[in-house]
């Protein structure tokens, strides 16, 4: 499975007979018979629907027994414009790389003005690729969509689409929109387990004792046997559950559509949304992981009420979006000791202003929204667009990772 990641870099395209599986960019046609391409034992049952991508579980070009990129299989051209910060190197695969057959990059820019030349050309774009690096993307995207009514697909380079969602954009909800769901999940799962251990082994105490040259044995806690409650059980939540499960933790998941995860082997319990569900999860979890997207529904969802319901000594981890949490209530819960501690990678305001009380609360682990920021993460997100979704688009197949701009994720 992993070997086919080599295939990404090959750009040779040819059609061969089924007996000789072709080594071709984006697919190996030896994946013939699979109606269920999922091979890992604990794979997300949702993947069976072919809708979503996960960097660990999905095979590059996995569903490409459906695809044969040849002149005959191309149903339409992809004429792409990229809404991006100038010189965004992460977009190399799109801006400078070789694109799949049938795909062309018409131009890059940060504002509608940058695309003025295109407006009168006979080559009108039908795809817009938008990166969070683009300043004021939220303003520019609807302007671009208005100026180029030929656009039929919007792809967001990141997983969170809150950077671009607006009432104006909802006006274009008829245009399919996709994102980078599944690209960053494993890094964040690693962070989550580190955050849990940070409190279980009392890492702050270790560092303190080291400073004082104090050799004092103290008791540590195990993660084994403890409960992890995941608020917003999407791809990130699932990646966390996958690792936590091997640690011997129990998983309680919460999501809008609990039925989707009913058969998920990783979840012990799945709740739907609703006041009592969240409080129930809070009361049952030793470690709460908040990985929900920021939407109209989730804003301020984890509030004072929820924190009142927490189990004794609970730890709160937020790696989704700051606005999902009522920060005042969180600070209160930390200061009063209601929460043992928190690990926060995201905040309502980023960068976190120096006046924020979080800096001074001792039982908080703060990171500058970088716990998924590997050297290559954004490059890989762009490569996903180029190698996975662009071929699907030109061959007329379903795109991966559809999002609903009205619902917000």
């Amino acid at each position, binding site marked *: 499975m992993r070997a086919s990641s080599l295939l990404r870099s090959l750009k040779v395209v040819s059609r061969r007979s089924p007996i000789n599986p072709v080594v071709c960019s984006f697919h190996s046609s030896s994946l013939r018979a699979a109606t269920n391409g999922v091979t890992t034992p604990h794979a997300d049952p949702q993947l069976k629907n072919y809708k979503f991508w996960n960097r660990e579980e999905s095979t590059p070009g996995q569903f490409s027994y459906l695809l044969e990129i040849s002149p005959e299989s191309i149903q339409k051209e992809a004429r792409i414009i990229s809404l991006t910060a100038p010189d965004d190197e992460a977009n190399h695969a799109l801006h400078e790389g070789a694109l799949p057959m049938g795909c062309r990059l018409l131009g890059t820019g940060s504002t509608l003005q940058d695309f003025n030349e295109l407006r009168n050309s006979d080559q009108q774009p039908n795809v817009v690729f938008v990166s969070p690096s683009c300043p004021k993307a939220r303003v520019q995207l609807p302007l671009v969509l208005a100026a180029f009514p030929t656009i039929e697909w919007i792809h967001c380079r990141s997983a969170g689409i809150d950077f671009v969602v607006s009432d104006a954009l909802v006006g274009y909800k008829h245009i399919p929109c996709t994102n980078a769901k599944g690209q960053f999940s494993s890094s964040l799962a*690693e962070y989550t387990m580190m955050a849990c251990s940070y409190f279980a082994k009392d890492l702050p105490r270790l560092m303190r004792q080291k400073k004082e040259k104090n050799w004092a044995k103290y008791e*540590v806690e195990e993660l*084994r046997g403890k409960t992890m409650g995941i608020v917003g059980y999407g791809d990130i939540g699932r990646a966390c559950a996958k690792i936590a*499960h091997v640690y011997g933790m129990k998983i309680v998941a919460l999501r809008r559509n609990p039925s989707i995860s009913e058969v998920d082997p990783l979840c012990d319990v799945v709740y739907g949304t609703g006041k009592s569900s969240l409080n129930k999860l809070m009361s049952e979890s030793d470690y709460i992981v908040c990985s929900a997207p920021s939407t109209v529904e989730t804003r301020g969802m984890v509030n004072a009420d929820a924190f009142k319901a927490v189990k004794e000594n609970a730890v709160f981890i937020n790696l989704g979006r700051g606005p999902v949490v009522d920060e005042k209530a969180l600070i209160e819960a930390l200061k009063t000791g209601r929460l043992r501690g928190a690990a926060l990678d995201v905040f309502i305001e980023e960068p976190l202003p120096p006046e924020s009380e979080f800096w001074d609360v001792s039982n908080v682990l703060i990171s500058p929204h970088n716990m998924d920021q590997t050297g290559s993460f954004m490059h890989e997100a762009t490569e996903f667009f180029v190698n996975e979704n662009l071929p699907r688009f030109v061959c007329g197949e379903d795109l991966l990772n559809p999002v609903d701009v009205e619902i917000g994720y």
Partner: protein
Amino acid sequence: LTMDDSNKKYYNRETSIPFSSDGDVIKEAKILSLGKADDVNNEPLYKGRLPEGSKLLAIGTVMGDFDIPALKAQEPNVIFVSSCTREVLLQLLDAFPTIEWVHSRSTGIDHIQSKGLAAAEHVVVTNSKGCFSSTLAEYTLMACAYFAKDLPRLMRQKQHKDWNKYEVLELRGATLGVVGYGDIGRAASKLAKAYGMKVIALRRNPSLSKGCSICDKVYGADQLNTLMSESDYILVAAPLTDITRGLIDADAIAHAKKDAVLINVGRGPIIDEDAMIDALNNGKLKGAGLDVTTLEPLPTESPLWELDNVLLSPHNMDVTATFLRESTEFFVKENLERFVRGVTLLNLVDKVAGY
């Protein structure tokens, strides 16, 4: 989830099936406890239910605590060791030739190991292998992440109210080299695999791990330098024996990969501490996570206290509120029940090899 055949001979807290005490009791255990009378962790022995006919004869830590003539008449056959010196143990074995079995509440037996013990052919030794492994595995992955996500930098930045986005490393795709692939090594590998790490195992008998589903490669002891050159994170989980003492020396460290991190949960003397300190100072090693050191408590003069790239813990990363009690429970519920039924004991130690 059996990793290899040794599950039949050894105990693992996560995977072993509890002993079913159905069979007939064929002898009695008459137990001496070499340990403290007020040690609450020994309550499963001091106050718990023992197999039919078996009893605890005496508790003590030095020879003076035991009424030798009186006890001799009762013919004690088991010694449960939780706190003692190797000299006292030898003296007890001398005084009571009826002893057939010595069980150590800890896993490491380096503190009671001796030539005299090894020579006492009528005495078998067992330990608590497998009782503490998962906790140490959790520590291991935490130590890896500590360096991969640069936790020290996060704490520094917080102190300075500095919001500075920096790149982190993934554990996924990195290689964990395990020196001493026993129960702890396996538990750590299980977790490492879940993270998507690659695992290289090193042990005296590599054939024992043939077909092991959680290691990608298995090396023999002569391939240490190869392991060092291939691993991003090296876990030392070996017991302390004549062979392993000073095993990770300057030469081995010189073969380390760039930015390698060394983690020790075995015994301090396995690593040449001076060589390691040098390597930490000159950047040959990116960092170290040490739960054990050559001297414990670590003397304040040790340079380890002041090295920024060292995560230091006071040999407590397996010290949960219940771990010693659970180890005593293992002795009572698993091995004592086997002993009185003539069933082979779990966790037999090779007295000559020292583990």
